[in-house]
């Protein structure tokens, strides 16, 4: 396969991954599935970057996208960690595992500024 074809293959996979993650984020109600969807989306984006790094047929791979992916992974991990902690805290407080609104806020909520 030519360089361009393999690039297209990876790129297409990346976009499909992104779309899959997006659909999970939007349509699933369970918090963990949403967070996983976000992770898959980021995986797709990173894959696209990496495939760009190798596509121009030079002897060496382009370091810039690789640096970007490393940065992106770091960001993604912190955000995921934060999201998981939040989800866990929500579950502890309300027993919910989704973002559904509570219909009747209890009266004491109104007294908190």
């Amino acid at each position, binding site marked *: 396969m030519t360089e361009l074809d393999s690039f297209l293959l990876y790129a297409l996979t990346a976009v499909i991954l992104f779309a899959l993650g997006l659909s999970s984020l939007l349509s699933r109600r369970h918090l963990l599935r949403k967070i996983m969807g976000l992770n898959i989306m980021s995986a797709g984006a990173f894959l696209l970057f990496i495939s760009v790094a190798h596509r121009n047929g030079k002897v060496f791979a382009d370091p810039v996208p690789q640096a970007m992916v490393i940065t*992106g992974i770091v960001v993604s991990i912190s955000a995921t960690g934060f999201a998981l902690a939040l989800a866990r*805290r929500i579950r502890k407080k309300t027993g919910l595992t989704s973002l559904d609104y509570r219909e009747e806020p209890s009266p004491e909520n109104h007294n908190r500024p």
Partner: protein
Amino acid sequence: MMVLIVIIPFSGALICLLMPKRMRGYAGLAAAAATCLTVFLLAFIPGGEDTFHHALGGWGRPLGIELQADGLSIIFLLLTSVTAFLISIYAGPYFDSPREQKTADYHFWTLWLLLWGGLNALYVSSDIFNMYVLLELISLAAVALTTLKEEAEALIAALRYLMAAMLGSLVFLLGVAFLYAEYGVLDLGGLGVQVQTTLPTITAFGLMVFGMLIKTALFPLHFWLPAAHGNAPAPVSAILSALVIKSSYFMLLRIWFEIFPSITTYAAAQLLGAMGAFAILWGSFQAVRQERLKLLVAHSTVSQIGYLFLLFPLTIAQITGEQGASWNMQAWTGGICQTVSHAAAKAALFLAVGNIIHALGTDRLISLRDIKGRLPLSVFTIGIAGVNLMGLPPSGGFVAKWMLLNAVISSGQWWWIPIIVLGSLLTAGYVFLMLGHVFAPSRKAVVLQSVPPALEISAFALALCAIFIGFTTSGIIDLLQMGFHTMPMPEAITWRLP
């Protein structure tokens, strides 16, 4: 020099983390003052060639990170500094007062200074990946600030905010990937020259704009905003509505005018304007229906953001190079004036509302009647901020709406006229909904918690800033004309190099 505006808040954040709890407020305030001062020095003290340009570590493009400030950056930096400083003055006594001790304020200052540093850095970034990272930093810090109140509503709102923010960032990142795949450069200047109308480019454009729209909460992507802004502590709501939203709007301006001017179309601009119009109407309509003060103000933010998006259809002539686009400067000045005055007014409004809630102990709109002549300064602040939002004289909002309407009429896009008019009427609806309750007879005698004077004064000072903006338009125009060093000159307007 320019690096300082980023280093000071970041180091301040670190110091606050390490300090004992009692000292945090003072350290935080000191860092805030220092940051504000540095920005003012940067903006107003004339420096040499390199004042507005700095390559981190000495490594230039395309591998290194360069910081570059142009007129728009300075405007946003100044806006952020003044507002942030006044909010910081507010935050200290706010978190110290007994009623608020329950909230986990332990890390407010750290998070806030990180957020501020991120904002400053964003405004002087010159490549899109750096901007992505900073946007993420800003979002994470903002979400963390939203969780300070440990109630379930706040936490759920925060998680929703986090997901929406991450969605926006990831979509944006995908756009960055496409752009890099196509052109191999990341910096704004380089991209602006090279961008052409190909499918990947248009996709990248759409993705990046979409990502920023989610973060700026433009209708119909605003679902996360009211709950997040409405359930945070008062200073945090002010920070979110006034400053964080503006950061993604800034990104949008950069994307639209620096990277993609050659491929934006009239239709795309009108689409953004139309979404803005819906935001104006829908947001104020929802605001009028609210029973809780902070949710009312949060929905008002959704509405006011719509005005910011009128800038795009009105400046499309700048890009398509139509002759005689004399209304261009009017539109820009009006849009920027609106941005700045909205930031000040919305922050003032949230802070004043925070004062009232603090005093009354409840968030319900009806309980405004129990104020009964007390807290005059906070009520007055709400009045001034409301006047600003409605666009009535004397205020910065009035000047902004004047210029926008002028640009609308001069450019012949008369269909925005009823939107602007209706928007003002609906805004008056919810502003006077609040103020009407203040004048109404009180229901019962309520003992008010005392509000520290610093809280009232800082809110009032912000409201005065919003009015003052109306008088600085010539300064804004001058700043707007400072272009990016490396940018090619767009044809329709002439920008002077500093």
